[in-house]
């Protein structure tokens, strides 16, 4: 419960601080506190989960009108009305999340806009319930027979802002926070880590709605009244402005945005009615010039500062080293050294591993698999087996069906016919399929041709994504960081560090991976795949974009991983660099036109006439030879 204690402590301190302000400023800063809470919610939604919603004022309105209406009409005490309003908002937010599942970015914006407008209509026509166009005054709230004074509400606003900041910070650092960012960056790859978009999107909306509603409750009592005009499109744009200017995706940004934008007009007297114009111009300015907002500027300044302070500096950054040498080292030598670093021993062509003739050593079997994409047969009668613990290459010209085969295995494409078996038991078939989110749980991990490494997350956090389904931590438990979650987290981080070291990652594991070189990103992705100790590793063109020696080192590194693994690790390698595959694989399957031509030892496959023909292009060999 440590996080909760920190949150409560922060809230208490903030409340105490608020009493030091004179009354007018108390109100103004309390209002900023309310806006901070809303901004936190919007950052969870937009910054973390990447969902655009224009309906945040609506949820604020639900909170505000919720308390005012229920207390006025039904005489509910504050302690019942407030949680009820927040719970209602949570529920409706969750519903909105289910709709968002299938909508592309801008369409979601349009739908939430509609929701906002529709709610305003409901408020205006709510007659008795909502007091219509002109709104209602907030009743006197009591806490066990004590009237809550306006100053107290100001304290509550401060406390809420501080507490919520801590909790949201905790949430974004937790397992769910990482999952949100992964989903925002590449939903498909995230699914392969076991991340389920439905749960994540609904929870993002729900959390954001609850925060906005809580803010709305406090707002109603701070203002003393509610009216429909307070929850319209302009407020929506204001709130977007706060998070963009503050810096999207960061808790600091949620605090800076409202704080700076609300105090600036105060300082620049005479803005008066030009306030909205000022906001909009600032927003546009930030979007064009500094898209990461104020928090982005602070983190760049911090990075700049670190470079100047000798305690933190890195020799590569020191101004005393001639720039040319620095650049040379950074651009040429370091990457080469880094990619060779996966090898701690001489590269040599391995002796072929003994190939088992009995079926029980098969890790993976394709059995007459057929997949149809929109009327076209992509693969048909595809049959081959991969031996346990082996490095198995899958080659074939463009359109041969290699990607489709992987898609069939990983639940992206449905089988029309045939079976795929893993360790002898049925895994994928036309009747029974394993979803892509279940892959990691079943011991299958994969990498992608263009490495998927979430830029906002560090190498360590990216690796932790691989353990998503194996550790605990939901929205609430993750935020509160309860003991079980903390323990899982600690063990997971240990394992992640270990795995990163095993794949030869040499960089800073805590730094965001945004600027890293291709070789490093590939290692991080490999670590993410390996950290869950999979049985079967699917690699999609892992040497793409690498030069020859780096490519060799990579494949050799993979073999060493297999050799040093505690349990047998089977690798299925889809590659276009055929000589490399022949040099290092135990066995190779060559595909063409949707089926397997041959599976066997590399030399066998290389000499097979049909394989050669598939690369040369059919009967033209004869014609060409005749003319030549």
């Amino acid at each position, binding site marked *: 419960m440590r996080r909760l204690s920190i949150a409560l402590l922060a809230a208490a301190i903030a409340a105490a601080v608020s009493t030091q302000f004179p009354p007018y400023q108390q109100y103004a800063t309390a209002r900023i506190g309310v806006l901070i809470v809303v901004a936190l919610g919007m950052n969870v939604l937009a910054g973390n989960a990447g969902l655009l919603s224009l309906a945040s004022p609506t949820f604020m309105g639900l909170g505000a009108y919720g308390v005012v209406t229920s207390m006025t009409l039904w005489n509910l005490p504050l302690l019942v009305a407030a949680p009820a309003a927040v719970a209602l908002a949570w529920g409706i937010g969750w519903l909105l999340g289910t*709709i968002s599942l299938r909508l592309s970015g801008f369409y979601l*914006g349009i*739908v939430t806009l*509609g929701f906002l407008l529709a709610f*305003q209509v409901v408020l205006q026509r709510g007659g008795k319930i909502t007091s219509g166009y002109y709104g209602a005054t907030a009743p006197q709230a009591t806490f066990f027979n004590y009237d809550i004074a306006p100053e107290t509400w100001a304290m509550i606003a401060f406390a809420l802002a501080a507490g919520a900041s801590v909790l949201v910070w905790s949430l974004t650092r937790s397992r769910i926070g990482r999952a949100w960012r992964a989903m925002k960056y590449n939903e498909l790859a995230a699914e392969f880590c076991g991340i389920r978009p439905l749960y994540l999107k609904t929870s993002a909306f729900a959390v954001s709605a609850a925060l906005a509603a809580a803010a709305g409750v406090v707002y109603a009592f701070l203002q003393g009244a509610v009216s429909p005009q307070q929850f319209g499109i302009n407020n929506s*744009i204001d709130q977007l402005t706060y998070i963009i200017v503050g810096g999207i995706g960061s808790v600091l940004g949620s605090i800076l945005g409202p704080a700076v934008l609300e105090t600036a007009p105060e300082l620049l007297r005479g803005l008066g009615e030009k306030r909205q114009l000022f906001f*909009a111009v600032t*927003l*546009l300015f930030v979007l*064009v010039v500094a898209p990461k907002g104020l928090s982005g500027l602070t983190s760049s300044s911090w990075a700049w500062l670190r470079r100047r302070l000798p305690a933190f500096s890195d020799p590569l950054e020191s101004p005393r080293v001639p720039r040319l040498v620095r650049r040379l080292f950074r651009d040429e030598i370091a990457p080469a050294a880094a990619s060779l670093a996966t090898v701690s021993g001489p590269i040599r062509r391995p002796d072929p591993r003994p190939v088992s003739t009995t079926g029980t050593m098969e890790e993976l079997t394709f059995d007459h698999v057929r997949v149809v994409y929109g009327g076209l047969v992509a693969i048909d009668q595809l049959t081959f087996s991969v031996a346990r613990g082996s490095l198995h290459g899958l080659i074939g010209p463009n359109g041969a069906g290699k990607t489709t085969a992987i898609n069939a295995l990983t639940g992206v494409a449905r089988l029309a016919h045939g079976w795929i078996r893993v360790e002898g038991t049925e895994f994928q078939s036309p009747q029974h399929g394993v979803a892509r989110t279940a892959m990691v749980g079943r011991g299958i991990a994969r990498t992608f041709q263009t490495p998927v490494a979430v830029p906002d997350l560090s190498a360590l956090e990216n690796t932790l994504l691989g353990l998503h389904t194996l550790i605990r931590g939901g929205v609430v438990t993750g935020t509160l960081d309860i003991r079980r979650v903390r323990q899982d987290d600690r063990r997971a981080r240990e394992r992640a560090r270990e795995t990163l070291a095993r794949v030869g990652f040499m960089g800073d594991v805590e730094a965001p991976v945004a600027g890293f070189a291709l070789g490093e990103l590939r290692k991080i992705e490999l670590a993410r795949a390996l950290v869950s100790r999979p049985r079967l590793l699917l690699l999609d063109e892992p040497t793409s974009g690498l030069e020859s020696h780096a490519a060799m080192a990579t494949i050799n590194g993979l073999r060493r991983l297999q050799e040093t693994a505690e349990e047998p690790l089977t690798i299925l390698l889809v590659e276009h660099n055929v000589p490399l595959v022949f040099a290092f694989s135990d066995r190779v399957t060559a595909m063409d036109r949707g089926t397997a031509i041959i599976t066997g030892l590399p030399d066998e496959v290389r000499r097979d006439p049909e394989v050669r023909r598939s690369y040369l292009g059919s009967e033209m060999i004869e014609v060409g030879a005749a003319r030549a």
Partner: protein
Amino acid sequence: MVGLIVGGLANGAIYGLLAIGVVLVIRATGVVNFAQGEFITLGGFAYLISISIHANPLLQLAFVLVAGVAAGLVFFVTTEYLLKGADHLRILIATLALSIIVINALRLIFTDVSQPTPPWLFGERAVNLGGNVVSSNTFVILVTGLTATAGLYAWFQFTDIGRAVRAVAENRQFAALSGINVRWMLAISWIAGAVFTGLAGLLLAPVVSVYPTMGQTVLFKGFVAASLGGFDSIPGAMLGGLTLGVAESLLTAQVGGGDLKDALSFAILLLLLLVRPSGLFGRRVLRRA
């Protein structure tokens, strides 16, 4: 009843022109312009200014067209140059910012006061349409809406430059490889989008008067109309608008009330998304796979 439908068609034609503007921009540039409503407002104010200098109808139209061209160019420059390489979310929010800037700039210059304007071209006259008497504005709206749609469709199908714009909308790389200057085509798309929407402003002004947020209030309906049309077809957008206009008209006759129209549009949108996300009249699917 017929009067209701005709009235609904007239409103719908305006939504349709707005939707056409949205579709023109989104097809070519991929940008969803949340400030599209402001093109209506600028058109309305251009009309207002032209009236104040006692211009003849042709010159009034010219004012509106020029305003559209200018606005389109500003947005083109902002999105293609200032925001070059930005992801769609950022550009979308930028259009929201531009929307507020335009509204507030107009507010500062003209204040929030609603300024009524006479209907364009024929003034306050009544026209006889097959036994029914309609205002001349309604007549002008319907004629303009249909001519604009037909003209635009023909432009895309039969002119070289229209086909070049279609090419850019289909695949920018292929268009560049064919020697097309992609940026000019994008500029033309923005300008066309702004001009057609500006025309809607000219037609809307006599109905609701001219004031800074006149466009913002119909923006959502334009989006719904474009959705009905599937977001990729010009005739579809107009049909979507007409459908929405008639539906609105019939509903408010039953239940009454101006702002209910917004709720109705939202309901229609939700229904559409649940039942037929590709739109009633178009082909593109907007769902994520």
